[in-house]
């Protein structure tokens, strides 16, 4: 578990003070993927650097699995850092070293023996899917491959925590997805706690368990990804949710399409944390003598299940339709009857 308590960072210049991180408190469970989202300037980049003290906190505490990071001496911190992995937006690889040599670097720093380095590097190359690229130089790799080297390098000393600083922001959408899949994979395989910062909500949606929304150095909203998605409270959060779900206006252009529905009922099915009712529609159609016609829908998958809504038209005998609605209501899907003729 990682505990962050009243953490602040104030940058002082000759004439002014900038509060980058403002009395921030958080706790992050072991083995979870925790996302911090915010616009640029919100202080998230400073925040993640405070965790391994690449930036010295002005005040406050950081604790990782009971060890007080903010209390460590310079030398003890240096040794501790060997067990906190970090990956970066621009990868930060050494261009003068090959893929293998880059991955070996943190092992050299930790004083691992040559034979062991060789063995470990090969394991890591396989883990991140870079077999065959061992002797390539970073300049010969694509962005996604470079980030894979970054991840392998960060994992070399078997850390318990991985810090991701906008790790996918410099990548195209497809490559982003493959890197996110790799992060989920290592999170599950190695039980690694991952803290990532990003300005892209779909990164949060795809891989995070919990999320904190940051604005002006503070956390303005926090909770499980599904909660934050389904009930965003603050405006900044709503905007981030819109990045993924689209604007509510787009979705509920209800009147226009409802007017075109001539018969039957229009139902709104709200899916939250859905894992069990994947085949709900076809089940309903099979069980009851009703026709179900999908009008519009927007459903996203998160680590905890699906989230979103579906508009359907249901045509049939009134009694049968009511039975079908009752059946759906028994599941975790919420039903809202919008019109009926």
């Amino acid at each position, binding site marked *: 578990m990682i505990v962050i308590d009243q953490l602040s960072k104030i940058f002082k210049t000759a004439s002014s003070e900038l509060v980058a991180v403002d009395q921030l408190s958080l706790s992050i469970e072991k083995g979870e993927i925790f996302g911090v989202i915010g616009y640029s300037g919100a202080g998230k980049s400073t925040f993640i650097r405070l965790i*391994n003290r*690449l930036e010295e906190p002005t005040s406050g505490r950081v604790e990782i699995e009971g060890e007080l990071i903010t209390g460590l001496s310079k030398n003890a911190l*240096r*040794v*501790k*850092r*060997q067990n*906190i992995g*970090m990956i*970066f937006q*621009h990868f*930060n*690889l*050494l*261009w*003068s*070293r090959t893929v293998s040599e880059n991955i070996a*670097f*943190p092992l*050299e*720093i*930790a004083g691992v023996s040559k034979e062991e380095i060789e063995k470990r590097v090969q394991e890591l190359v396989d883990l991140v899917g870079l077999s065959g690229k061992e002797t390539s*130089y*970073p*300049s010969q790799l694509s962005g996604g491959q470079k980030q894979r080297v970054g991840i392998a*390098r960060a994992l070399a*000393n078997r850390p318990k925590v991985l*810090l991701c600083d906008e790790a996918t922001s410099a990548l195209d959408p497809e490559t982003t997805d493959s890197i996110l899949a790799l992060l989920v994979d290592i999170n599950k395989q190695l039980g690694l706690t991952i803290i990532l910062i990003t300005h892209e909500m779909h990164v949060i949606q795809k891989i995070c368990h919990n999320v904190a929304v940051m604005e002006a150095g503070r956390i303005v909203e926090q909770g499980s990804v599904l909660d934050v998605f389904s009930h965003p409270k603050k405006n900044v959060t709503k905007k981030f949710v819109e990045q993924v779900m689209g604007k509510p206006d787009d979705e509920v252009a209800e009147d226009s399409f409802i007017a075109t529905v001539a018969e039957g009922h229009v139902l709104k099915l709200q899916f939250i944390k859905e894992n069990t009712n994947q085949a709900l529609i076809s089940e309903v159609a099979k069980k009851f003598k009703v026709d179900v016609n999908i009008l519009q829908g927007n459903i996203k998958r998160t680590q905890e299940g699906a989230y979103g809504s579906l508009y359907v038209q249901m045509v049939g005998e009134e009694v049968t339709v009511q039975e079908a609605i009752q059946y759906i209501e028994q599941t975790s899907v919420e039903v809202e009857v919008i019109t009926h003729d």
Partner: protein
Amino acid sequence: MTNLFPNIDWADLVVATGETLYMTLAALLGTLILGVILGLLIYLSQPGGLWENKWVHLVTAAFVNIFRAVPFIILIFLILPITIFLFGTFRGPTAALPALILGSAPFYGRLVEIALKEVDGGVIEAAKAMGAKTRTIIFKVLLRESLPALVSGLTVTAIALIGYTAVAGAIGAGGLGDYAYYYGFTRRDMDIVYICTILIVVIVFIFQAIGDAVTRKIDKR
């Protein structure tokens, strides 16, 4: 050959060429060591650097600026007492080395500093995040990542040094400059001046070619 260059003693010419090469290479070695130390000190002690230190920064920067400002021929006269104290004479190629090194190391030091500044700050941050010691960052990140720029800077410095050896030669250091001046210019035997010029140009070209080849080989960007 003897018709084209009637006044040349070929054995003397070989000796002079050897002296020029000796002065250049020996001074280059001294320049490399002193220049890297100066460049590193300026870079590391700068505000926000790994060894931030106002006084070290001020002193090294002042040393570099002063010795770069002094014209080389005057520098030779200025450090004459030191040369005589060290070697008992100011004549000969070895006695020229202190002046050559002091003349070119500050120049190379600046090139080293520029090369180090070009190293991506993100890479240094990554090394810190891995728990690297400052020593590791210096040798395995800073110097290694800037190596191509360090080599091409050394090539430029080497060529300036060849010019300096000729200047030193004119006041008795030996080498091709010495030979061209005393045996050629003062006796009006211009064929000696010409052959010395050709040899110096050839040496410069060889140094440049070696420098370029090494840079190409190590530059993996």
